């Protein structure tokens, strides 16, 4: 038997000593004493992501050194649960002054009054790719240093072996051509499921990764003229055609209903021949396959190839004692120098032309330039309505159900019904 009493007394003593220091709050924002710089808190989703966190820290340090009026304090959160942390903070009215937000959430937050519009930055942001500037109701609320683009990854050697044409940005695969590609690869017998579209993913990947294909068919997540209903857009003939195509990939044995835990590793291990992923796969895939890796444009299902747009963007909250400082920082941080820094360190698509020219690989004709071209040419933003986060969950569930054999039309009808009810329940976010 353990000597409980001794242990308990010892532990209690230690714990109480520690807890004396623990009664103070973490990150307590001290009100600025006269003369000392005013606190501007900043949150980012980069905990554990050394490259991006390092870049953001550099900007913060540069800003703090550049003036004496404000002091920006960085707090990093892990990306996987960042939205939960931030929504919790928003609900508790504890948002920081400056924060990064996943672009499709911006309109929701702006509508809720959590975000302050960015003022006096139109000139600076005019140089940014449109998909990296988040607007709602005519006002700009956030900007991002980079975007990402969707792409099909394949091995050149495999495509050649099967006599498959390597598509280009000007001549992407058509729907019929893609059907033929899938058939050829399957017939080769090398892969159980030759195509991997990362169907094991969760959350935002579903609308980000698959709604562009829906849009290429001619459907959409919601009717974008007034954002009042998804009827016709998400359950019309074209949307149903998309759903049948999507489910068909599974039914015909071309794709797994649920990908493995790491589709990229599976692709590199030769378990799949075609991988639908994003530009972020560029660097790691090239590291393994070198010149054999090809990054192909999305399929044209009739309405042109599409990729999603909008990644992490920076904005200011309305819950800030030093709002002027927040605006000041965001202005400082929007220069080409920092777009270059962040895009380069994260290997993502830079938001401005000047930055692209300065980053090896993204210069015209560089190995990564193709991603920038896809982004510039094919981007459709996710619907800029405060109802988006709800639409996203409904679309994700519908797409998952359809892959698992649910009747496409009925499933999409249900999603439309729920989305419309939600838009109406919020009085169409007027």
């Amino acid at each position: 038997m353990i000597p409980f009493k001794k242990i308990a007394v010892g532990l209690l003593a230690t714990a109480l000593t520690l807890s004396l220091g623990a009664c103070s709050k973490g990150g307590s924002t001290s009100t600025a004493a006269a003369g000392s710089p005013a606190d501007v808190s900043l949150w980012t989703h980069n905990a554990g992501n050394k490259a991006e966190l390092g870049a953001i820290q550099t900007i913060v340090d540069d800003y703090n050194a550049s003036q004496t009026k404000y002091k920006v304090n960085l707090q990093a959160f892990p990306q996987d649960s960042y939205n939960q942390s931030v929504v919790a903070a928003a609900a508790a009215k504890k948002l920081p002054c400056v924060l990064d937000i996943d672009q499709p959430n911006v309109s929701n937050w702006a509508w809720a009054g959590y975000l302050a519009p960015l003022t006096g930055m139109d000139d600076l942001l005019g140089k940014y790719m449109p998909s990296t500037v988040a607007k709602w109701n005519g006002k700009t609320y956030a900007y991002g240093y980079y975007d990402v683009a969707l792409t099909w990854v394949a091995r050149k050697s495999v495509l050649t072996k099967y006599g498959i044409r390597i598509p280009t940005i000007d001549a992407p695969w058509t729907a019929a051509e893609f059907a033929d590609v899938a058939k050829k690869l399957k017939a080769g017998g090398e892969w159980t499921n030759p195509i991997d579209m990362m169907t094991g993913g969760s959350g935002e990947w579903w609308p980000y990764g698959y709604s562009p294909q829906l849009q290429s068919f001619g459907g959409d997540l919601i009717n974008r003229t007034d954002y009042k209903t998804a009827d016709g857009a998400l359950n019309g003939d074209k949307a149903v055609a998309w759903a049948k195509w999507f489910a068909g990939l599974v039914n015909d044995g071309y794709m797994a209903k649920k990908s493995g835990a790491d589709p990229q590793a599976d692709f590199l291990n030769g378990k799949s021949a075609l991988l639908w992923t994003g530009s972020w796969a560029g660097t790691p895939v090239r590291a393994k396959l070198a010149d054999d890796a090809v990054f192909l444009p999305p399929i044209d299902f009739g309405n042109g190839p599409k990729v999603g747009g909008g990644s992490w963007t920076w904005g200011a909250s309305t819950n800030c004692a030093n709002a002027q400082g927040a605006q000041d920082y965001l202005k400082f941080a929007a220069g080409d120098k920092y777009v270059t820094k962040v895009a380069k360190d994260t290997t993502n698509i830079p938001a401005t032309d000047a930055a692209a020219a300065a980053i090896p690989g993204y210069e015209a004709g560089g190995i990564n330039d193709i991603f920038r071209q896809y982004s510039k040419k094919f981007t459709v933003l996710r619907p800029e309505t405060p109802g988006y986060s709800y639409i996203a969950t409904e679309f994700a569930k519908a797409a998952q159900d359809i892959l698992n054999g649910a009747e496409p039309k009925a499933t999409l009808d249900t999603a439309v019904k729920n989305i419309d009810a939600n838009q109406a329940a919020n009085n169409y976010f007027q």
Partner: protein
Amino acid sequence: MTTQTAEPVATRVAVPATSKAASDRIRSWGVMAARILLCGVFGLPLVFMMVSSFKPDQQIFGDLGSVNAFLPVGDISLDNYLGVFDRVPFAQFILNSVMVSVLTVILGILVNSMAAFALSRIEFRGQKVILSVILATLIVPFETLALPLLWWCNQLPYFDGSIGWLDTYAVQIVPFVANAFSLYLFYQYFDSIPRELDEAARVDGAGWFRIYRSVIMPLSGPAIATVAILTFLPAWNSYLWPLMVVQTESLRPAMVGIDYFKQMATSWGQIMAYASMITIPVLAVFIAFQRSFINSIASSGVKG
């Protein structure tokens, strides 16, 4: 259990004496084989976790389909562990988890045992009602209360006079101190301690509090250990709540750290390494205290 007396064995079956020894032997070999087989069932997934923590990501997935998944073969290195220390303030997170868990356990033992003592030993009006209310709260899963609790914790005055408990150690500890299940276990255990003992102490002039401290608690080692373990595990493993209420990295507990490795491309090898590292302390404590661990958890079932 004290009331139980087994019913008399009704049937008598004669067993041929000659084959008995042989069949017993076969049986005991069979039983041992079953035990060893089950070790595989319960131990192998954790072996997989630890073995994978030494492999590069791509190899983890390459090995998935074969017995290699459980063997430290191929490209073995400490890279994942180095990566973990590079990405996460590991020592800080472990220290935070230790602080939060230990304090929750100690305060939980004090608070719940006192209440259980009052309910078990001292008779007063409303006792039954209080007990049934406490038992009813047993069924509430934390996830369903998280949002209202978050909002509410943010309205409460804090020790230093400010409003709101968010972003503190306290908000990770205090809401979980009073626990219906712990209280119930103490209550049951106290009820089994013969009342002659405290009667004797009363005759000697001891007050209720002294009886609690000097008679009942010293006899309740197994119950204390049970509650300690049952409080420690969820406190160590808590994830959803700290995600919501802790903003400062230096206050974050270990379990949240897992999310640091899920980026655009998840670093599975590092997740395995990190998961191994945050599990090993719990395992070590478990193995070190194994006997009292098991015997004391066992005691929670003595009375039903």
